[in-house]
C-alpha cells in the first residue's frame, strides 16, 4: 500500500508564486509562474477486479470472449465488439510472457518520470492471453541499453513491493536474468530480485602514454568549456541549473561546475559533488563536449558511468550545449 505521507504531487514539483519581465526588442513582456491542476477521486469501475488483483492478490486478469475465445489483457472491455457484444468473463493469466515487439527505451523522460529514466515500455503477451499488456521493462544489470529486450524475449512479471492498484504496480524483466524458481514463482516481488548495485568503476594507474592523452583531452575540454561560456545559446541551456560534477578518467580527475548559465572546469577534487562521472578514456567526454558524438549515448553504451541515473537531465544539458556551440558556429 502507498505510504500515508506520500502526496499526489510531490512538493518539489510545485513552483513558487512569482513572475518576471522579459524584454524583447525593447518591449517588456510579463511572464508569470502558473499552474492548472485538478484532483480526482476516480473509480476504476469495471477495471476494479483487475487493479485489485494486482494490488492485493498479485495476480493478473484478462477477459475471455465466450464466442470467439479471444483473451484480452488488460481486460479493457466487458463485452466483445467483434461478437455482437457478447459478455466476456474474467480469467487469470500466467505471469510469464513474450514481448510482442522490440520495446522503445526512453532516455529523455517527461517531467513526471525523470526519476524513472531510462526505462523501456513495451507490450507483453502473457501466457493465456491473445492481446498485449503495456508494461515497463527493466534489466537487472544496470542501464537498459538497446538489444537487451527484443521482440520474442521471454519476460517475467515482477510486482512492486509497494502497490497502489495501478498498472505501474508491475513491470517485467528478462526471464533469462532470473533463476528458474524466480521465473516459476507467482507474485514475484521486486525485493526478491538481486538488482545489480551501482558500483563506481575503478581506474587503473595511467601509463605515460595515457597521461599524454589525458593532458591533450583536458586541454580540449577546457577550450570547449570556455567556448560554451562565450556562447549565449549554450549559456541559456543551463540557465537556472546548478550542478557540481566530479569527473574521473584514466590519467586524472577534475570538476565541472555548472551555475545558472556559467560553466567552468576546475582541477580539483570536490568534497560533495552532486554526482560523479567516470570515463575510462578522457576522450569520451572531450568528444561529447566537442559535438563529435553524444554524451548521452556514451552513458547508454557504458563508455561513461554516472553515479545517479536522475542526472541524465544534466547529461542532456551538456549535449545541448555542445549542439548550441556547433549551431552558433554556422
Amino acid at each position: 500500500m502507498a505510504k500515508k505521507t506520500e502526496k499526489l504531487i510531490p512538493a518539489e514539483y510545485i513552483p513558487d508564486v512569482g513572475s518576471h519581465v522579459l524584454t524583447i526588442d525593447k518591449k517588456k513582456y510579463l511572464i508569470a509562474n502558473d499552474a492548472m491542476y485538478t484532483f480526482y477521486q476516480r473509480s476504476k469501475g469495471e477495471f476494479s477486479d483487475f487493479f485489485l488483483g494486482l494490488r492485493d492478490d498479485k495476480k493478473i486478469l484478462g477477459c475471455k470472449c465466450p464466442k470467439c475465445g479471444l483473451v484480452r489483457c488488460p481486460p479493457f472491455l466487458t463485452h466483445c465488439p467483434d461478437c455482437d457484444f457478447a459478455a466476456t468473463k474474467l480469467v487469470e493469466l500466467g505471469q510469464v510472457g513474450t514481448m510482442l515487439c522490440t520495446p522503445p527505451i526512453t532516455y529523455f523522460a517527461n517531467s513526471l518520470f525523470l526519476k524513472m529514466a531510462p526505462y523501456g515500455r513495451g507490450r507483453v503477451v502473457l501466457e493465456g492471453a491473445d492481446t498485449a499488456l503495456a508494461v515497463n521493462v527493466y534489466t537487472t544489470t544496470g542501464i537498459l541499453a538497446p538489444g537487451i529486450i527484443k521482440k520474442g524475449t521471454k519476460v517475467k512479471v515482477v510486482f512492486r513491493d509497494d502497490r497502489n492498484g495501478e498498472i505501474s504496480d508491475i513491470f517485467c524483466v528478462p526471464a533469462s536474468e532470473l533463476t528458474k524458481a524466480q521465473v516459476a514463482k507467482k507474485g514475484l516481488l521486486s525485493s526478491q530480485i538481486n538488482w545489480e548495485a551501482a558500483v563506481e568503476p575503478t581506474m587503473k594507474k595511467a601509463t605515460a602514454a595515457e597521461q599524454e592523452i589525458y593532458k591533450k583531452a583536458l586541454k580540449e575540454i577546457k577550450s570547449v568549456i570556455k567556448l560554451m561560456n562565450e556562447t549565449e545559446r549554450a549559456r541559456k541551456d543551463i540557465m537556472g541549473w546548478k550542478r557540481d560534477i566530479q569527473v574521473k578518467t584514466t590519467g586524472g580527475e577534475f570538476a565541472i561546475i555548472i551555475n545558472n548559465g556559467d560553466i567552468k572546469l576546475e582541477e580539483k577534487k570536490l568534497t560533495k559533488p552532486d554526482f560523479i562521472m567516470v570515463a575510462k578514456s578522457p576522450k569520451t567526454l572531450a568528444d561529447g563536449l566537442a559535438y563529435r558524438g553524444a554524451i548521452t549515448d556514451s552513458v547508454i553504451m557504458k563508455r561513461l558511468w554516472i553515479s545517479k541515473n536522475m542526472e541524465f537531465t544534466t547529461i542532456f544539458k551538456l549535449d545541448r550545449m555542445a549542439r548550441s556551440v556547433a549551431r552558433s558556429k554556422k
Partner: protein
Amino acid sequence: MSKRVGIVGAAVTPFKAKWNEKTYYELAQMATREVVKDAKIPIKDVDAVFYGIYNDIFERTCIPEHALHGLIGMQNKFGTRVSTGGATGAYTISAAHAYLAAGRFKTALVLGVEKCTDCFDFMSMSATPEVIKSIGWSGDSFFEQRLGWTAADSYAEVVLAYMDEHPKDLKPRVTAKISSLLSQYAKTNKYAQRQFDQVTPEEVMNSRLVVYPFKELEICVYTEGAAALILAEEETAKAISKNTGKPIVWITGLGEANEHSFAGKKQKVMPRIMSDYLASHQAYKMSGIKNPRKSIDIVELHDAFVHQLEITMAEFDLVPRGNADALIDDGLMLPGGEYLVNPCGGLIYSGHAVGASNIMSAWSARNELIKRKKKTAIVHGTGSTIAQYTAVCILEHD
C-alpha cells in the same frame, strides 16, 4: 451530388519555439487577418469556422476556441473545433470540406493554432519535459499513462515493430540523410522555426538518443504558431479566384481512419500504420488516383519522426514496404526524384504547432503546386497513441 471544394486562401504565422510576444488569441487573429487578405475577402463573407486545436492544457483553458470566435470576427456564426491529436489539422480540413460539399456553407475558415511551450518544468528549468508531460496526458489513463507513455515512445513502438519485420530498412544512414535534406528545404521557408538550422547527415548521426531508436535531430520540434485556409464551394471559389488572380487548388480526395489503441491479436497491427494505408487509399479512390506513384507530385507529410515518414510513404504506396530506404537509395525523394517531400522542411524543421501543423502543410502544398505548376499533392496528418489516427487530403491544381 456533393459540391466541389477548393482552397482559395492560405496563410501562416511565423512558427517559433516560443512566442513570448503573443498569446494564442493574437496568433489566431494574425493567421485570420493574413488568410482573408490572401483570399481578398472580408471576414464577414466567411460563413463558418473550423478550429484545429489539439490540447486544452497547452492553451491553459478548456474550449480554448470560445474566446477566438469574436476576436476573429465570426460572432453569431457557426464555429466548431476538431481535436484528434497530431492529425487535428488534417481532420479539421476534412470536417470543413464535408460541410461545404454538403452545401451547408459557401465559404469556411479552417484555423489551426497552438501555444505549447508556455508549459514549463521548474525541476529542469526548461519547457520540453513539461510539454512532453502535457502530451503524456493523451495516453490511456488506466493502462498506460503511469508507465511513462509519451508520443515519442508510442511512435517508437510502431517503428521498432516495423524494424523487427524489416531489419534492413530504416538504416541510420538513410534517416540521417532525410533529416539533413529536410533541413535544406527549410532554408527557403521564411516562416520555419529552424529556417537557418541546416544539419549534415553526420550531425544527425551524432545527435543524442532521446527515445530509442529516435535521435534528437530525427524528431519534430515543439512550436507555437497558427495557420489558416479559406475553403469555398465551386461557384464561390471561382469568383474568389477571379478576384485574386490565384488559381484554385481543389480538394479532390479525403480519407480518414483510426485504428485500435490496444495491440495484439485482432487489435492494432504493430508493424503497420494501417490508418495511413486506409486513409490514403480512400483518398486515392475518391480522387480517382489509380497509380499513386505516377500521380503524386508533392507530398506534405506529417513527419513526427523521420522513421515514421519512411513508413508512411510506404503505406501511401509511394515506396515499397520493407524497402522504404529507396526514398534515398533510389533517389525517389532526392531533388529531381519522383516526389518532392515536405518542401516546407516538414514538422521537423518548419515546426510542429500541433493543431496548426497539417494546415501549414496544406498551405505549403498549395504554394508548391502553384509555384511549380504541378498537378497533385497529398497532405497528411497522423496522431494519437501508436500512430492510431490518420487524415489525408488530395489537392489538385487545374
